[in-house]
Structures are given as structure tokens and as C-alpha cells.
């Protein structure tokens, strides 16, 4: 059982404003990706031969009920999990041929992550949290500070750089997480339920912010979400059900 979605198919369905998708170059290509998990003696299939391509600058929503495989697909796209079968090309490179170290370098240089629970380091300030990817990459101190400040400003948190996560609201924390995801100038940002822990107004602001940053920086976003408002703002919606594209 295989399923396939392309940016072209999405446009035909008219699921979102597709101006960006219409000019998109492929950044990500999945072919027949399958993944299953073993729980005791039982093997549970999470993805069953999913094929998908996403263009540069697209803003894609992964939707589906719990257990549909959207988080698994997001993890595979983010190179933090590997498929059991199928092929995954990112920026033209077959990721199945990359060593763990090379995968880490690709994550560091090409990808950004936004988590549902923000996943900020509680002992670090907002600015320091944003600096983490640059620190991991070994960027010089001055460059780190400058880029982190610019990212903080870009998400509208100027003046709050020295605050720790527990001194920020939920929306502000997610903005810090967005800044952290974008500070390394990635090509692809993967967001897992980024608005799930936010109230409606804040969620709308965060969605707008992500869209704006994605557009201005030519960054591809893949967002796993239950949030209909979020999906409505995406160029394309990829729906999953029982591990296949719906």
C-alpha cells in the first residue's frame, strides 16, 4: 500500500494558496518510505510506503488523527529517525547513505526544529537558547551574539533577551524556539504541533510569524498539526491516515 503526494497534486486540489508552491524547487523527496515500531511481540506499522515531495519555500501541513504517522514522518524528514524501507532525498542527497555524524551535520546546517513543548533549556536566557545551534556549530562568539540577537528581533522579542524561559509566556517561549530554529539559516524547518500549547490568539500570532519568516527567508516549513487554523494557513496540507497519505 503506497501513497504519493506532490506539490502539483496539492495545487490541483487547491488546498492552499499555492503561489510559493508554484515556483518551488524540490527540497525533499520521499519514495515508498515505511517505518514500523516493535512493542513487545507486536510490530506496529507507522508508515506504509509514503511518497512525498516538497518544494523549496513551501509551507506544508501534515495532518491526521493520533497514530496516523505524522510525527514519524516528521522525524524521518528531520533525520532524527530512519525509515525501515524506501528512499529519502534531502537537497538532492540520499540520506540513507549518510553516516550518523553526517546526519548530525545536516541537521545542524540545513534543518531547524520547533517542538510542541518548546524544549528550551531552562537555565539559559532567551538569547543563550537561540545561540545553542551556533554554539554546537562552533561559530565565533561575536557572530553567535549578532545572529542570535537578529533572530530574537525577528521574532519580536527585543528587550527580552536576558529572560529565562520561566520568565516568558507560552507564546514568547515558542517565539524563542522559532528563533532558535531559524538562527542557523536552515533550508527546512520541522515543527511538531507548534501551537498545541498556546491559546487561540497567541497561536494565530505564532502561525503568522512562521509564515512571514518562511516567506522572507525562503525556508520550507513542514508542520505536523491537529490545528485547523494552522493547516488553513499552509500552502499545502498532506493528510495521513493509518500510515498512508489520505
Amino acid at each position, binding site marked *: 500500500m503506497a501513497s504519493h503526494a506532490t506539490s502539483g497534486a496539492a495545487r490541483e486540489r487547491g488546498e492552499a494558496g499555492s503561489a510559493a508552491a508554484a515556483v518551488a524547487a524540490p527540497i525533499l523527496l520521499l519514495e515508498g518510505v515505511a517505518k514500523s515500531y516493535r512493542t513487545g511481540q507486536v510490530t506496529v506499522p507507522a508508515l506504509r510506503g509514503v511518497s512525498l515531495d516538497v518544494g523549496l519555500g513551501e509551507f506544508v501541513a501534515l495532518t491526521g488523527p493520533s497514530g496516523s504517522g505524522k510525527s514519524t514522518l516528521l*522525524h524521518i524528514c*528531520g533525520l*532524527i*529517525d530512519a525509515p525501515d524501507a524506501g528512499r529519502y532525498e534531502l537537497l538532492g542527497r540520499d540520506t540513507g547513505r549518510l553516516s550518523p*555524524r553526517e546526519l*548530525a*551535520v545536516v*541537521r*545542524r*546546517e540545513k*534543518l531547524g*526544529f520547533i*517542538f510542541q*513543548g518548546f*524544549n528550551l*533549556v*531552562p*537555565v*539559559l536566557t532567551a538569547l*543563550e537558547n537561540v*545561540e*545553542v*545551534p551556533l*554554539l*554546537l*556549530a562552533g561559530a565565533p562568539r561575536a557572530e553567535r551574539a549578532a545572529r542570535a540577537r537578529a533572530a530574537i528581533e525577528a521574532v519580536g522579542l527585543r528587550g527580552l533577551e536576558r529572560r529565562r524561559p520561566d520568565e516568558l509566556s507560552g507564546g514568547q517561549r515558542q517565539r524563542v524556539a522559532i528563533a*532558535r530554529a531559524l538562527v*542557523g539559516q536552515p533550508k527546512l524547518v520541522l515543527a511538531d504541533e507548534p501551537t498545541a500549547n498556546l491559546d487561540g490568539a497567541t497561536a494565530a500570532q505564532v502561525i503568522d510569524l512562521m509564515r512571514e519568516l518562511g516567506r522572507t527567508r525562503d525556508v520550507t516549513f513542514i508542520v505536523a498539526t491537529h490545528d485547523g487554523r494552522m493547516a488553513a494557513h499552509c500552502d499545502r496540507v498532506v493528510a495521513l491516515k493509518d500510515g498512508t497519505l489520505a
Partner: protein
Amino acid sequence: MKWLWFAVKNVRRNRRRSATTVLIAVVGTASLLVGGGFVEYIYALLRRIAATDSGHVILAHRDHFAMAEDVPMQHGLDDAPSAKARLEADPRVSAALPRLQFSGLISNGDKSAVFIGTGIDAAGEFRVRGSFLWKVTAGSALAARLPEDDLPEIMLGNDLARQLRAAPGSTLTLLATTTEGNLNAQDVRVKGIYTVGVPDLDRRAVLVHIATAQKLLLTDRVSTISVYLRRIEDSDAMRAAMGGLFPGRALQTWRDQAFYYRAVRALYNRIFGLLGAIIVVLVLFAVSNTIGMAVVERTREIGTFRALGAFPAQIMRNFVMEGLVVGVSGAAIGTVAAGLISFALGRSGVMMPPPPGYSVGYPLLISRSLELYLGAALVIVGASALAAWAVSHRAAARPIVEALAHV
């Protein structure tokens, strides 16, 4: 922000837990330093006793150390004055002292006892040994020269004097076998009574001028020449030099003769080595426990860092740095604490009980050497880093998805 600052912040996340671990490292460091300092002091004291007792290098007849004599002084050294002069010409030498070992009976007229006598160069011996090894308990030490108008002087060990009911001024008679195998007797006057702190020796010990012993044994030989150096570290070099100077003679260093020192050192090395290992293991466990709990609590954070592109080695490095922060803090505070404890003990005047076989105790002092302090600090810091590495390396290699899903 640097990784070290990040490590410091992480250590401060759970202050009470970190403080407890640092405290264990402090106690561990201080224990190693105070215990190690005490052992070093004991070793230094025993080295000094051994070297002061025997001399740093001992020159003797070729067969002196290995073979029994058929008659007294069969394996004695001829021409001692010449050898003494040649040795004292070396700038490393502070004194070359001839000694004559002999034994026999000592009598007060009513009662006799076996004695073990040493003929000495009184001026030189009391200069190098002073009151360090021979504590005069009654009368006074032998004069530098033999008295010309009185009987030869002797000093008696405490218990021997008690057996013979002798006191300074008493007249006694020494009986010994001469080099020709005959018995000879010499009347002597007690000049002083002394103790070496070892009851077995105090029951037999007699000191006389070397000329008195030579006259009693009818010889001009000596048993050995003990060479005292200005620096104990020159012992082996001096022995080598003396090998060239006195070919065909037997040479030993103080270490060869220091049976008690070697035995105590072997015993203490095991006892304190075991205690030190226990302390290090305790620190290892404490740091492992603290870092281990931090690893569990921060599993999701580890997953986040890995997702952001951290290598497992970077994750481990962060935890090792946290272990180092704990270890360095503990070692630094422990070092200061050990210094203060050592200083206080040194000022307190506390005396240790006499060791087995001795009748006098010794002051409780703690050595403070740079090597010991650096070594102990490095051991504690190293143990902390090792513990952190051991508990973090599995977490660092855990699948990222699993780590992110950790609750």
C-alpha cells in the same frame, strides 16, 4: 555563553543535590590529603630515623654484612682514620663516623647482664644524632674526649641501668672477648643514662668511646664507617662514588638497613591505599549518582540538542564538564580544608601513641607537599570526570526520538 558556563549553570540547577556531591568531593579530597599527609609525615620521620641511625651510606669490610665472624672484629675495617679523612673531603659529606659493635657482660659486682655495645666518636655522633635518637634521661652524654684522670665513660640504656641499679657516677665492669679470643675486662664509670625509645634495645644498650671499645677488644679496627650526607637524596650517588674510592669493600645505603621503615611503608601503603581507593570509589558513586539523575531528568534536553545537530561526543563533553565543575569545586574546597586541618593539628600538640616495639609516641603532624596536593586534587577531579563520562555516554547515544519522547 561558553560550554563551561553552561556546565556551571547546569550544576546549579539542583543546588542541594550538587552541594551534597561537592561536599562528598570536599570530604574525599580532605581525607586523601590529611591521610596522605600523615602517611608522608610518618615515612619522612622513619626515613630520618633510619638514616640518622645507620648513616646514609655504610662502609664495611667485604664480608661484614654477609658472613658471621669467628672472633670479634675479624671483618673489621683497618685504617679507619684515613678512610674518614678521605670521605670527609667530599663536599656532600657532613660526617664520617667510625663505629665498633661489640657485646659481652656488664657487671656491678653483684649482678651481671648481657650488653650490646657501640663504640662511637662521641662528639660526631651526638652532633649528627643529637637528642633525636638518644634521649638522655639521667646524667649527661659522653664527653668529646676520653677523660684522662678517671675511668672511661659509658652510657647505659634505661632498662639496663635499672637492672644493674646503676646511676650516673656508678662504677661498672665490662667483660668482652678480645680479637684474640680471650676475655678482657674494663672498669668504666656511668656518665649518663639514655633511651632510644625501644624497650628491647634499652635493656641491652651501652655506648662507649670507640677508643674504650678498641682497648677492651685489643684492636685498632672499627666495624663500620657511617657516612652522613647533607642531603639524603645524594645517598645512591655517594654509594656509587664510594664504590670507586674503596674497591673491595662492602657498601650499603640507609635503605638497605631500614627494615622497619620498609615494613611500615609496605603496610601503610596497603592500608592507606585501600582507604584511598574507597574514598575515590565513594566520590565516583556520588558524582555518578548526581550526573546520572541529571541525565535522566534532562533526557529530553539531550534529544533536543541531538536534533539540533549535537554529536554524542558533545553531549558527553557537557556532562563531563559538569563532573569537572563538581570535582574541581570539591577538590579546591577540600584542599583548603585539608590545609587548615593540617595546620590546626600541627599546632594542637596532639601526640600519637608509641608504635609497636617503641616506648615513646610521636607528634601528630601532617605533611603538606605540592605533589600530594596536586595528586589528590587530580584524582578527585579525574574520578568526577570519569563518573560523568560513564553515566552520560549511553544517554548521549540513545536514539533521538526516544530521548525526545522521554517524560
